[in-house]
């Protein structure tokens, strides 16, 4: 039986299928939204009536990249001005060069202020990471020199701090009488514009609230997918940012993904955070119900839990000897966000409902607590093929990987940390030895744990050529190799960003490799990741994607 449908053959420089049984092809044939086959143009032509499209003749076609951990605010934050340390492309494809000094930050803000027409409008910016400006601190008096009377708020990359200017301090009544511990003070004892943690940041009033609200708009969802398409991604996972019990947010997702032009598939995780419905059994039921409402482009069925904080924020739970050089006054270890001894009871309802639980665990105490919980729940309710996943896995130990393998768990490893914070991890947070075995893709591979790698965008930029580059090279921002023995090969990394990410989401029957019958989701690349120097992996250009057979050229703007 052949196909009666006319189909298109795309000859390519090479098709990398990530199907070990048929790893490469000269061309791929697409019928409707599905892959008809891979092979030589002649082989594919023998299926019948077809058209040959040579637009990818010089390109390399891979399965569309699958991001199993990022957040929709990746799209929403672009309503504000980017002042991060690293170069970053916005969803329109414009390159925003990194602000590598406080002067760069101020220059960027001055330009943004000059471009604003309404004088009363607040200038919002994001991505500031003071960890890269040791010894110097951006404070209100700096901001005042370029923003004048315009209220200004700069959100830090950590999300736990913001710096505001004097105009905004005045508007919010923050002065020397402030009593909140969230209001930082300079050497002169006066508030310096830095607001710490939610209790401090909320004193900035509407400015902070507006920034958060921008993450819920339709525009934010479109930008999220546009950014993905520009980087070769065809599936994104919004891991626990959406309140799925809120009909507005759910319908918003249904609306944007229902638009045929929307350029990505999205897996939206159920989260137990951010809301009043806290009975896990009820959330599990809702999530099962949502699975019956899903479409080709909108998927459900996974649940996000969270156990600890972040390593660079010194809030991840790390076992002895804990932190290497924590800041003065640090309490010794990180914070639990969920009580570890409650974990099994929290996981159980989702586990029993047939859902997959993805738990944020940065520190090794957190991964241990989650692995314990999964083991306990499996004893109570044995279940095959649950694929419960340790998210971030930054300090997960070899012994823990062995347990994960035995229990059928997956890992999603935050490889980008090696580049973006690896130097700080070695010198400050965990010290040289443990930094060298962080984000241990090689150990995961050798232990037989199926794993993916992720950007956690907006925490680091979305783009799987970068996450793969990190896992393969383990080069830090300062150019040093951190833990060479944990490096993996390019073919391993390519599996991690395609089929194994899909497998973690239980979508590997439909996407993640180029095989007859699967959805025609491709990343179209300007060069061959298996032929270039591994250090050049992240520099490969992305033409765009094919999503369900539709061509989605990347938008590359001018800088």
């Amino acid at each position: 039986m052949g196909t009666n449908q006319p189909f298109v053959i795309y000859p390519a420089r090479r098709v990398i299928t990530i199907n070990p049984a048929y790893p490469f092809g000269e061309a791929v044939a697409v019928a409707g939204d599905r892959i008809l086959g891979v092979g030589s143009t002649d082989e594919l032509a023998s299926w019948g009536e077809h058209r040959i499209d040579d637009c990818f003749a010089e390109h390399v076609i891979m399965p569309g990249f699958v991001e199993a951990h990022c957040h929709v605010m990746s799209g929403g934050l672009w309503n504000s001005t980017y002042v991060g340390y690293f170069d970053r492309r916005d969803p329109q494809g414009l390159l925003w060069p990194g602000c590598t000094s406080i002067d760069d930050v101020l220059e960027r803000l001055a330009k943004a202020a000059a471009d604003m027409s309404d004088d009363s409008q607040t200038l919002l910016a994001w991505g500031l990471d003071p960890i890269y400006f040791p010894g110097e601190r951006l404070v209100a008096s700096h901001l005042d020199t370029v923003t004048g009377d315009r209220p200004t708020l700069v959100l830090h990359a950590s999300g736990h701090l913001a710096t505001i200017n004097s105009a905004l301090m005045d508007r919010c009544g923050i002065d020397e009488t402030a009593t909140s511990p969230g209001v930082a003070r300079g050497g002169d004892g006066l508030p310096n514009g830095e607001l710490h943690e939610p209790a401090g940041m909320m004193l900035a009033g509407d400015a902070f609230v507006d920034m958060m609200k921008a993450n819920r708009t339709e525009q934010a969802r479109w930008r999220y997918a546009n950014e993905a398409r520009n980087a070769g991604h065809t599936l994104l996972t919004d891991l626990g940012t959406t309140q799925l019990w809120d009909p507005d947010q759910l319908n918003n997702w249904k609306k944007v993904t229902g638009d045929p032009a929307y350029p990505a598939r999205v897996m939206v995780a159920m989260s137990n955070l951010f809301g009043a419905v806290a009975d896990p059994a009820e959330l599990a039921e809702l999530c099962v119900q949502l699975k019956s409402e899903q479409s080709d482009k909108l998927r459900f069925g996974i649940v996000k839990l969270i156990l600890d904080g972040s390593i660079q924020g010194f809030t991840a739970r790390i076992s002895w000897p804990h932190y290497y050089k924590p800041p003065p006054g640090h309490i010794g270890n990180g914070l639990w966000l969920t009580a570890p001894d409650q974990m099994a009871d929290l996981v159980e309802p989702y586990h029993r409902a047939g859902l997959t639980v993805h738990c944020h665990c940065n520190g090794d105490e957190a991964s241990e607590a989650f692995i314990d919980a999964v083991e306990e729940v499996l004893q109570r309710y044995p279940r095959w093929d649950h694929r419960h996943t340790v998210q971030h896995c930054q300090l997960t130990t070899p012994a823990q990987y062995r347990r994960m393998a035995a229990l059928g768990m997956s890992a999603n490893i935050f490889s980008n940390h090696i580049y973006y914070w690896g130097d700080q991890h070695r010198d400050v947070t965990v010290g040289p030895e443990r930094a060298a075995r962080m984000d241990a893709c090689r150990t995961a591979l050798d232990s037989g744990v199926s794993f993916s790698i992720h950007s956690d965008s907006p925490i680091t930029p979305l783009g799987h050529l970068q996450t793969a580059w990190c896992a393969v090279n383990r080069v830090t921002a300062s150019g040093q190799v951190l833990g060479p023995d944990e490096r993996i090969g390019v073919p391993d990394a390519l599996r991690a960003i395609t089929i194994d990410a899909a497998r973690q989401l239980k979508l590997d029957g439909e996407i993640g490799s180029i095989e007859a019958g699967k959805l025609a989701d491709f990343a179209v690349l300007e060069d061959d990741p298996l032929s270039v120097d591994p250090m050049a992996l992240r520099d490969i250009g992305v033409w765009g994607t094919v999503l369900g057979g539709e061509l989605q050229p990347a938008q590359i703007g001018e800088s």
Partner: protein
Amino acid sequence: MTSDQRIPITVIGGYLGAGKTTLVNHVLRSTDERIAVIVNDFGEISIDEDLIVAADSDKLTLANGCICCSLAEGFSAALDTVRSAGVLPTRLLIEASGVADPNQIAAYGHTPGLALDAVVVLADAEQVRRQANHRWVADTVRIQLAAADLVVVNKIDLLAAPEDADALCDWLTGVANGATLVRASRAAVPMDVIFGPELREHAAGRSPSTVASSARAAHDTAEDVFESQTVVLDAPVPLPVIEALVANLPNGVARLKGLVQAAPPASADDANAAETAYLVEAIGKRTSMTPHATDPTQPPPRWAISLISHKGSLAPDWLESRLHERN
């Protein structure tokens, strides 16, 4: 009315299972005050079903008209929810999550319009020592206890022997250094201990020498455990006397609250000397003396100090005698 219109905040912390929600429910049942409850749930909320009359996505309306909302969306959102319910509450309770550091929640007490009243931390009498040595949560539990102004040693009835309770309280005194300890079952703590003794705001119709026994919450079952004394002040008190009183409270005192006029120091130039009014409060190690502006259009306040103490721990005229040391 006093000029201080800030809404007092009580933070309720303590490890999972210590009885935080039981305490919240106890408070809601024991008072007619309009109390708003904000829950930092993180997946733990268990406000009793019978108290809930209506629930929508971000708030629960409780049977007595109080509302309960979640902190997870951010404190501003929770406050907006509270405000949108119409009448402002007279008090705000924030129930921290079982692993939260109550001090971080207490930081919200510095939001304009709000004032931190006390950090109340519950300890499960049976479990707390095990938790405080647990391989993963020991530091969390100890940080919680150290943050307390008032430790409610809950489920005390589950301990086998009274000596066990004494030993536990000795240990807790060390861990929660300086906090007031209150033993309770089912979190039934007298309201005056949780919220502080009630000060009657106005002098009108009051005998100036009343030494009232506080019985605000008639259903409190702990009258046999706590007693109160009140001294009505007919003249300003020298500032050093008030300061010395607050700084040297004996262990038996659970809470103290007063509205006092401080007399200027004897040496002060008469032309500039004026009495300054203070709201004086003490709970555990948290003591405060806040300047208090009086409203000339209102009748003068009733100047008085009240304290709540463990029964039998203080002489009945202890407060009176301290205040008269001025003479």
